[in-house]
């Protein structure tokens, strides 16, 4: 059967770094050690002035093409997930098509999701491939949330970092699907819990006021309430068990929330991936950045395939869960 699979992933991070020492100097009631202990994050990568999500997206895509030795002409669809676009219009994916030299016959579109975006993107790529409309989909996640943060808001500055990831999803022949049907969830009633109020057309920006506000307790309650249900929903939809999954790669929101989820779902620590210490919460790129080192290197002999559960959750509120073979 024709099935979509995750072939390769490459990340790209800006050079700038925000360390816990720098944060502790700005927010004296938290020591650098306490920030690390509570968030699981040692440093975040921060885009420079004039460096945008599209620049990071291009860096990740170029790294992926180089790593795979892939000709841009072989990509027939480009999906770009970002909430920090260069322009209101045109579509960032169109600009990225030109920058990368993808064929003009390629389809390209942006979709605006945050921490659930990678899993949604996988579902879109799977649908394009398994319906015969595309053979090689380039799924790029990229954001520069640092540009939306209030410098005095400790609760978000300790968590978010900038970054991008490019994932190649391609058509292969296999005995069984390599990406199971994805399960989704949406609750727009919680939209205000993670929100940049200004800068759209409802409340135009007056300059300098495009700021992310997060209601931490509400987001925590949402996560602890909905993520376990999404996991149950995925198991029911796919007929799989927790034990069948070798790895669990959840959105890397922060170390505290991940540890709570791990305990609530009774997942063994060695199967539960936590990989955000050097990058922080990179929004839609956390799952592919954590997944990248777990994929087999190009050209390496293929070992036993492993099954991973991916769960994205956050701004929207929006969530999605997938079971994939890597």
């Amino acid at each position, binding site marked *: 059967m024709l099935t979509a699979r995750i072939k390769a992933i490459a990340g790209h991070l800006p050079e700038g770094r925000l360390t816990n020492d720098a944060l502790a100097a700005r927010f004296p009631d938290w020591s650098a050690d306490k920030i690390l202990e509570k968030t699981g994050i040692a440093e975040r990568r921060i885009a420079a002035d004039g460096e945008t999500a599209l620049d990071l997206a291009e860096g990740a895509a170029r790294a992926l093409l180089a790593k795979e030795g892939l000709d841009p002409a072989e990509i027939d669809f480009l999906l770009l997930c970002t909430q920090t676009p260069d322009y209101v219009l045109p579509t960032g994916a169109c600009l990225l098509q030109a920058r990368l030299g993808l064929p003009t016959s390629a389809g390209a579109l942006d979709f605006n999701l945050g921490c659930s975006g990678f899993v949604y993107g996988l579902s879109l790529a799977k649908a394009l491939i398994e319906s015969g409309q595309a053979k090689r989909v380039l799924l790029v996640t990229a954001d520069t949330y640092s540009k939306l943060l209030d410098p005095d808001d400790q*609760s978000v500055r300790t968590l978010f970092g900038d970054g991008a990831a490019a994932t190649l999803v391609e058509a292969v022949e296999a005995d069984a699907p390599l990406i199971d049907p994805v399960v989704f969830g949406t609750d727009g009633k919680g939209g205000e819990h993670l929100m940049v109020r200004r800068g759209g057309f409802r409340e135009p920006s007056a300059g300098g006021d495009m700021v992310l506000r997060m*209601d*931490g*307790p*509400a987001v*925590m*309650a949402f996560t*602890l309430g909905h993520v376990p249900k999404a996991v149950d929903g995925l198991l029911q939809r796919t007929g799989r068990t927790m034990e069948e999954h070798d790895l669990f790669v959840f959105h890397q929101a922060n170390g505290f929330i991940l540890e709570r989820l791990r*305990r*609530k779902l009774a997942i063994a620590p060695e199967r539960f991936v936590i990989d955000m210490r050097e990058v922080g919460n990179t929004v839609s790129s956390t799952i592919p950045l954590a997944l990248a080192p777990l994929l087999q290197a190009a050209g390496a002999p293929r070992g036993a395939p492993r099954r991973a559960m991916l769960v994205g959750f956050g701004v929207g509120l929006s969530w999605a869960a997938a079971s994939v073979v890597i």
Partner: protein
Amino acid sequence: MSALYAGLAEIFEVDESEISPAAELAAFNWDSLAIISTLALVDEVHGVLLDGQALAKCETVADIEALVAKETA
């Protein structure tokens, strides 16, 4: 409530003997991180998710216990 008290002591980084119903939360740095941690603690101990805003308004340990009692009733 002992699991709750032990958890609160851990969150506030104080000895468990300092946690009593009358204990004032303001004395323990009742900030957003403490509120988030308490929300997760109550979920783990009692299996209920409190409303963050209601939790933020609690002034004493007894207020938290009353909120939990209301949710588990």
